[in-house]
């Protein structure tokens, strides 16, 4: 097994309502003084390093703005020529998924700030008698 197999890559994505910018995020990551490869991106940052150190960094960075900082695993290391946009000349495949889900992140942030308990059971159809009563009440 190569030592690269022990390393992981995580994407840190800032939500639309995040209280910090990409450059601030990068500064905070550097201030952690952890042995990580850090790359600035349009959506936030990519960090690469040992699993435990990456998890540690993720926990500390998430604490800055818990409901607006999202993270996701990435298979390829930052700057990998097989996926890096600089070499391929187009967005990598996973970016399209990210771009689409980014549109919903604002609402996800709202839901995370104001969590509610909901029922997981599917709503049932009302009976005909009940429906008739509602119609009669509306007609009055």
């Amino acid at each position, binding site marked *: 097994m*190569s030592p690269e197999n022990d*390393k992981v890559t995580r994407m840190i994505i800032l939500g639309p309502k995040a209280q910090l910018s990409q450059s601030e995020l990068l500064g905070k990551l550097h201030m952690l003084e952890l042995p990580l490869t850090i790359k600035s991106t349009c959506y936030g940052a990519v960090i690469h390093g040992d699993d435990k150190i990456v998890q540690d960094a993720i926990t500390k960075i998430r604490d800055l703005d818990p409901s607006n900082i999202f993270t*996701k*695993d990435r*298979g*390829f*290391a930052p700057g990998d020529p*097989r996926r890096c946009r600089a070499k391929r000349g187009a967005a990598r495949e996973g970016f399209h998924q990210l771009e689409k889900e980014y549109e919903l*992140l604002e609402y996800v942030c709202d839901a995370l700030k104001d969590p509610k308990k909901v029922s*997981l059971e599917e709503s049932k159809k009302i009976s005909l008698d009940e429906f008739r009563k509602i119609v009669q009440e509306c007609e009055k």
Partner: protein
Amino acid sequence: MKVAVFPPNSLILADMVERKGHEPLVIQKEIRQKVTDPEIDSPPFNITEEDPIKGLKYAAIEVPSGIRGRMAIFGPIIDEADAIIIMEDAPYGFGCIGCARTNELTMYFLRKKGVPILELHYPETREETMEMVNKINTFLDSLTESSKPNEEQRE
């Protein structure tokens, strides 16, 4: 608990599972093993000859090798899942999740597994998204509660 998410590269699902202290089973972890393996000459364009054979566990020999090759990557996710969250009608499917038949087969195996499962539709509006997030959180909380008595029993 290990929670399989579908689409297996979803940011929202994987992040929410992790927030609640569970481990999301995502495709990137499987891909990482492939692309950092020195045995493969030019990953990820090539797969090893063993991959379609591993895929035979999930699909018959008549099934195209592309599906079997993909199933070799999806397989560990299916096998390890203690709970499942499926989000249907996700708008994009690239790379490993770009094959509709593999997706159907994976969802079939996940549904057949007999573990707690939450099925959702990809949200389009603010209300739908908020409802989806609340449903996922409620589901994940119920998993935590259901796993507690088991831990006590083991003690």
